[in-house]
C-alpha cells in the first residue's frame, strides 16, 4: 500500500526526516547552534527537542570549528551526527574540519575508518541578510574529494535525500536554500530515500536543456511554462547532487535537445555551471551542440542588502526566459 502523501513545507520535510532517522537508529543525533528550545534559526529542528531531549538535540556553543570537529569525531567513533550550521556562510569558520579532516580521514587512514557525518547548510540570498548571511558556497565543498554535496530542490527530495545522507557511510553536505524552507510540496509519510548522485528530469522538452540547482529549479520550471507558450520546449534537469555529479543524465539530455544552459545562484565564475559546461565539452554530447553553452549565475559581487540590488544579483525568471529565447533563436 502506498504511503499517505501530504503537502509539507521543505522545512517540515527535513524535520520529519530527522525524526524518522532518530526513531530508526539510536546513534543518530542532532547538533548545532540554537537548535533546541529555540528550534533553529529557520525553525527546521522546531520542537524536536521536546520529543528527543536535549542530549539528542544538542545545542552547541557558538563554535563552528570545534562543533564540526566534535561531529567528525563522534561520526568516526560510531555515532551518526547531523550537524546544522546556522547559516552556510559559517562553513568558512569550520573549513579545517570539513576539508582537512572529514573529507580525508578515511583516505589518510587507508580505509580503516568511515566518517558518516551529515552537515546541513542553510544557504542562499533573498532574505535581506546581506553579504555574510546569503552566500552559496556549495561549489567550494564540491571541489573536495571525500565529500558528497547535495542540493535538494523540493520537499520530497529534501526528506528522501536527508535520509539517504544519514544512511551514507561518508560525509554528506546538504545545501538548503533558505527561500525553499516555506515551499510546499507532496511528501509521503514514513521512510524512503532519494539516491545521492542521481539527477532528476523535472520537465521533458526538445529544444533546450536547462541544468539547474536548488531554488533555480523552480525558476527554470516557471520560465519553461512561459517559453512553452512561445513554442520553446524546455527540458529542466535538477542536478540535485553536485558531487558525485550524474553526468550521464545531463549528457543524454543535451544529446536530445542540442542546447545547454546552466542556471545557479552561486557566483558564476568557477562555479557549478563551469563544471557542467566543461563536462559536456569533454563528452560525446559536444558534437550535438547547435549553439554555444550559456551560464546564468550570480553576479561577481557580494550579496547586497537593498532588496532590488539583491534580486538583481542572482538569476531571476525573466533572465532565464530572455537567455533561453536568445539561445534557441540563435541570437547568440
Amino acid at each position: 500500500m502506498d504511503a499517505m502523501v501530504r503537502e509539507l513545507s521543505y522545512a517540515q520535510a527535513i524535520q520529519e526526516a530527522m525524526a524518522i532517522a532518530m526513531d530508526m537508529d539510536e546513534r543518530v543525533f542532532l547538533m548545532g547552534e540554537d537548535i533546541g528550545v529555540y528550534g533553529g534559526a529557520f525553525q527546521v529542528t522546531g520542537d524536536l527537542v521536546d520529543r528527543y531531549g536535549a542530549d539528542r538535540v544538542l545545542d552547541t556553543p557558538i563554535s563552528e570549528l570545534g562543533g564540526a570537529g566534535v561531529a567528525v569525531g563522534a561520526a568516526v567513533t560510531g555515532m551518526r551526527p547531523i550537524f546544522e550550521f546556522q547559516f552556510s556562510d559559517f562553513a568558512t569558520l569550520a573549513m579545517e574540519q570539513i576539508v582537512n579532516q572529514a573529507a580525508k580521514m578515511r583516505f589518510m587512514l587507508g580505509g580503516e575508518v568511515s566518517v558518516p557525518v551529515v552537515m546541513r547548510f542553510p544557504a542562499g540570498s533573498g532574505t535581506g541578510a546581506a553579504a555574510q548571511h546569503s552566500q552559496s558556497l556549495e561549489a567550494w565543498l564540491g571541489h573536495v574529494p571525500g565529500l558528497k554535496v547535495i542540493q535538494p530542490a523540493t520537499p520530497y527530495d529534501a526528506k528522501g535525500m536527508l535520509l539517504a545522507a544519514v544512511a551514507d557511510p561518508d560525509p554528506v553536505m546538504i545545501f538548503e536554500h533558505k527561500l525553499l524552507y516555506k515551499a510546499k510540496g507532496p511528501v509521503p509519510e514514513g521512510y524512503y530515500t532519494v539516491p545521492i548522485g542521481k539527477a532528476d528530469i523535472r520537465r521533458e522538452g526538445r529544444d533546450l536543456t536547462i541544468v539547474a540547482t536548488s531554488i533555480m529549479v523552480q525558476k527554470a520550471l516557471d520560465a519553461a511554462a512561459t517559453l512553452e507558450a512561445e513554442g520553446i520546449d524546455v527540458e529542466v534537469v535538477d542536478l540535485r547532487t553536485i558531487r558525485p555529479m550524474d553526468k550521464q543524465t545531463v549528457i543524454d539530455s543535451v544529446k536530445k535537445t542540442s542546447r545547454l544552459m546552466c542556471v545557479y545562484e552561486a557566483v558564476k565564475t568557477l562555479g557549478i555551471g563551469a563544471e557542467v559546461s566543461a563536462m559536456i565539452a569533454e563528452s560525446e554530447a559536444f558534437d550535438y551542440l547547435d549553439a554555444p553553452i550559456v551560464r546564468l549565475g550570480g553576479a561577481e559581487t557580494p550579496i547586497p542588502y537593498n532588496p532590488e540590488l539583491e534580486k538583481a544579483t542572482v538569476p531571476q525568471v525573466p533572465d532565464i526566459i530572455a537567455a533561453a529565447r536568445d539561445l534557441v533563436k540563435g541570437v547568440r
Partner: protein
Amino acid sequence: MATASKAAADSRANLPFVYRQYSAEQLREVLHKMYLIRRFEEGAEESYMRGLIHGTMHLSIGQEASAMGICMPLAEDDQITSTHRGHGHCIAKGAEVKRMFAEFFGKTTGYCKGRGGSMHIADVAKGNLGANGIVGGGIPIAVGAALSSKMMKTGKVVVSFFGDGANNEGAFHEALNMAAVWKLPVIFVCENNGYGMSTSTARSTAVKNIADRAAAYSMPGVIVNGNIFSEVAEASHKAVERARNGEGPTLIESKTYRHRGHSKSDRNRYRTKEEIEDWMSNRDPITLFESELREFGFIDDRGIEAIREAVAKEIADGIEFAKASPSPDVSETGNYVYTEQA
C-alpha cells in the same frame, strides 16, 4: 592492568607512584617501549637519509616518557588522537613498529596502506585515531570521540595529544570549552617542548604555563615534568580516573623537549647548541627512567642490555619487513576516498 602484589607494594611504600602501582615486569616493558620509540625514530631518520623514505617527518626523540606515561593507565579500547609528532604516541598505544615502518616506506602493509605516511600514522584497532597534519586538528575530534563514549555508555576515555603550538589555535579553546560544558571523558595533553616550529612559547603564548588555560574552562590544569615517566603516569592516572568517574576533562601540560629539529628542514637557528646539549645529557627521559629502575632494583645491567638487543632486532626486522612489502598499485590511487559500497 594488574597492579603489583600487596607484599611487593608494601616494600615500595616510599617510592614514586609508578613503582607502587605497577609490577616490575610492566615497568621493564615501559623501558622496552621507550627504547622502541627512540630506536624506531632513529631508524626512520636513517632510512630517510638513505632515501628510503620521502616527504618529511617530525621526530619526538626526547619526549618518550611523555607518550609512555600518558598511555600507561589507558585500556586497549581507550582512544587517542595524535599529532604530526606522533610516532611515540602510536607505539605507546600498542602499534607494531614493522607496520609503522611499512607505512613510512609507503607500502600496502603499512597502517594506512601507504596513503598516510608519518604525518597520518594511525592504528585504529588499538584506539589510535590518527596523527594529524593540522596543528590542533585532532583536539575537537577527540572531544567528539568522548561524546560518543558518553552517549553510547562505552566507558572509554579519550586522550588528545597536541603540542604547545596548538594551544594558540581556536580549535583548542573551542574543544576544551565544549568538553567542560558537557563533562566529557577526555584528557587534553599538551606536550610543551618549548617551541612551535621555531617560535618559543615565551614569544607565542601569553600565559607562563599552558596548564593555566585550564582555569578558563573550569577543569584541573596539571603541570608535570614530561621527562620523568613516573610524574607523567601519575598525572595521567588521576585524569583517567576522573574521566572514567564522569567528573569531566583534565588538561595536563607535559613539559619536555625535542632533541631533533622541528622537521627535516630545520637548521636549528632559534636555539643554542648548549641548550640542546643540556637536555640530551642531563634530562634524557630514557636515561632518567633507566637509572630509577636500576636504583629501585627493578632491573640490572643485563636486563637493560637484553632490552636494547631485543629492540635492535625488532627495528632491523621491521625495516626488512617494510623493504620487502609491496607498494600499492598506481591503478588504486582512487581507493578509500569514499567507502566502497557492497
